[in-house]
């Protein structure tokens, strides 16, 4: 079995998760505490990837970033960045595609906290940053873990959007889910099975870990 697609998958999932964690904390904070009138629109946009066929997203990304068109051309010429059929493109598409899986758990974590915690910290003269890092985030650890794990697992499971924008370039954009499709197309069921088993086992273990940690089963052994 060729390990490259699997390694590429994990690399993609790891980078996507890290970027999404950094992006989602401020976004979820805003969604949880803002009373802005634009909030429903932003909430809708964040949730769109849940219901939109991945091919739709992939198609528009492909059009938008194609070097043949204005914006893609500008990126290519000025920043030397080619999103289409590149690893960077996969990361970009994955970040958008997995956004709700990171934002939703964190947002509901924030919303479930009593607003008086936030206000109490402000009354003690603490800035929003200090309040976020010392008060809010430590109290939503399980939501953070859920967001991280779901995002990681969901990125591993991507297929449509990756195929649309990344294609199937070995070592660059050929992730495990695409490798499986590829092997099946060539009737190499054995190889497809190996990839599938690894993904199956891995996603099962990751999700099991979340339920064990968040269910408080581990605490019985710590105390």
């Amino acid at each position, binding site marked *: 079995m060729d390990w490259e697609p699997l390694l590429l998958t994990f690399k993609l999932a790891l980078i996507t998760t890290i970027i999404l964690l950094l992006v989602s904390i401020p976004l979820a904070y805003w969604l949880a505490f803002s009373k802005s009138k634009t909030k429903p629109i932003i909430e809708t946009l964040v949730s769109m990837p849940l219901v939109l066929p991945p091919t739709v997203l992939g198609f528009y990304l492909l059009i938008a970033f194609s070097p043949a068109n204005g914006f893609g051309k500008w990126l290519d010429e000025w920043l030397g960045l080619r999103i289409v059929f590149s690893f960077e493109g996969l990361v970009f598409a994955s970040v958008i595609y997995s956004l709700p899986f990171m934002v939703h758990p964190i947002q509901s974590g924030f919303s479930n906290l009593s607003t008086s915690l936030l206000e109490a910290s402000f*009354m*003690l003269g*603490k800035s929003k940053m200090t309040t976020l890092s010392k008060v809010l985030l430590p109290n939503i650890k399980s939501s953070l873990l859920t967001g991280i794990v779901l995002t990681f697992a969901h990125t591993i499971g991507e297929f449509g959007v990756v195929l649309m924008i990344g294609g199937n370039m070995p070592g660059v954009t050929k992730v495990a889910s695409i490798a499986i499709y590829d092997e099946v197309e060539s009737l190499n069921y054995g190889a497809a099975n190996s990839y599938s088993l690894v993904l199956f086992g891995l996603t099962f273990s990751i999700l099991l870990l979340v339920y064990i940690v968040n269910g408080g089963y581990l605490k019985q052994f710590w105390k």
Partner: protein
Amino acid sequence: MIEIFLKKKLNASSGKMLLDIKTSIEPGKLVTLYGKSGAGKTSTLRILAGLLKPDFGKITVHGNVLLDSVQKVYLPSQKRKIGFVFQDYALFPNMTIFENLSFALHKKQSKKIINELIEIMEIGDLQNQKPYHLSGGQQQRVAVARALVQKPELLLLDEPLSALDEEMRNKIQKYILQVHREFNLTTILISHDLAEVLKMSDQVLVLDHGKIIQSGNPISIFSTNDRTNPFNITGEIIRLEKLESTTFLTILIGKDIAKIEVSNEENETLVLGDKIIITSPNFKPTIKKIIQGQLHLPS
């Protein structure tokens, strides 16, 4: 001197209401906001704390302008020297009691104040516990201590005693009075309880539908202030039995229940739930002490 002038449209449970407050409070006083729920008490406190923005107003505390809608001054909560005790205590669940208190310190403030407060509020045994393990009364003491770490000029307490039982209530009243004096605070607290208002406050502001309808010394407000009637008891009507010419009232006075008969003519307006004052001329009571009171403070 604390000068408060504010207007804000509120959406109360009973519909739209205009909060319209204008008052001043002398430094060092303990003031109670008294009134029905939905009268605007909590909103007033939150506006003072900077947690709610009024539509229009001006607030100055000892000469410092916290808010002036004409001059476009608005100090955020962080910059107001105000301690706030929340109704749900709002202790940080991820920190121990000691960490909750030390989180409240200024950047360069010495930790001395924490030990002082731990001693006053008698929470030494709880220091290393998480808030989750504490009873309501214990959490309340920690919340008061935390609000005082930065030595605020003004202490605001949102119904600090409503969730506690009688005994704990007495105890916390004592603690609040004690820190009020020792830290030279101006304190504003919200209360529904008439006995509490009479016992604790120097001044009471009675709120109704967003407006202050009475202000002044609680004893003079809640009593008839009549020298021939020195004996005033406040209570709440919990049962009303109307007969032909008289009405029997069952009245809850503190924890006790009394039943009195009044004539129908004079008392047509009485309804269930009314708070009333009972006076009795020519009343010669005999008094016997049964339990030593708890509200003794070093003077």
